[in-house]
């Protein structure tokens, strides 16, 4: 997993988003076992307390669960993962709309742009 942190947002919130993205994208598949807090903290170059806080938050949201002695795992509940995907997508849409409004784009312009991109996607030029 790649860790990059930037300015304003709290580090723990950025970790929550990064792990969520890894789960939603399948990089961390359902049922996968996570490394220990210290290993993850070291890998990300952050304070172990911060990593602990982020993982607890992901547990609270149901994306991770802990087995008493065996470690921490990604949920197998597809509905929870789908909800996380929608939540992340909502965040990107929000950022997109904010940027577009700043550019002075109307809704119809945005839809045209998106459709043009969708066509590109269908023609297989998207590199997926």
């Amino acid at each position: 997993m790649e860790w990059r942190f930037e300015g304003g947002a709290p580090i723990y919130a950025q970790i929550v988003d990064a792990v969520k993205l890894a789960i939603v994208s399948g990089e961390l598949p359902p049922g996968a076992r996570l490394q220990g807090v210290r290993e993850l903290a070291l890998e990300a170059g952050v304070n172990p307390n911060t990593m602990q806080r982020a993982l607890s938050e992901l547990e609270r949201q149901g994306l991770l669960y802990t087995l008493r002695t065996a470690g921490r795992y990604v949920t197998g509940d597809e509905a929870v993962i789908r909800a996380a995907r929608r939540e992340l997508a909502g965040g990107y849409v929000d950022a997109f709309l904010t940027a577009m409004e700043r550019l002075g784009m109307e809704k119809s312009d945005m839809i045209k742009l998106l459709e043009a991109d969708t066509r590109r996607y269908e023609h297989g030029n998207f590199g997926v």
Partner: protein
Amino acid sequence: MAILECKGLSKSYGPVRALDGVDFAVAPGRIVGLLGPNGSGKTTLIKLANGLLTPTAGQILINGQVPGIETKKVVSYLPERSCLPEWMSAAQLMGFYGDFYADFDRTTAKAMLARLNIDSKARLRHLSKGNREKVQLIMVMARRAQLYLLDEPIGGVDPAARDFILSTILSNYNPTATVIISTHLIADVERVLDDVIFISQGKVVLAAPADQLREQQGKSVDQIFREVFRC
């Protein structure tokens, strides 16, 4: 109980007030950034905590005790400048630290030296400046101390060495120990900090958890620092 506590702590050098009524307490298990521009009193505070200076007024306490023999057993100190005799080798230093400090873990120190390919037989004088600084940090972090006081640990080293130093701090402190890092290079350390203490002209101007500051102000600690200390 707080591992480190300052109560109305002041230190004057003649007419110069280096510290002026400093009050704060640090709980065990935290990594704390002591942040301030040059000349703000960071080094004075750390020297007071090590008993190298005595307060002009007020108190500084480690585990509730005035700095002295008992507190030095649990405090591991990295001074701002190199304090090691240059004629010694890392191997000799390990013997030295082992004799001085009951909590010195020679196995850990050896492993860290080996990982960095530092020749433990070579005299410090024959090592590069970067490697000398790493040897000193290794000696300090190889102690199983309760409080680490690191004065500008990343001051004079390149970015790769900074990463090594920060990961050494993260991987070697035990979760009940406290680490205090004094620095003005905030962007490099802010992701490892639990708490920050801003100090300016001998006074604490801000003390808060790092994530709380970022959340409330929507800025990095580095940006907040630049605003607080704008010249």
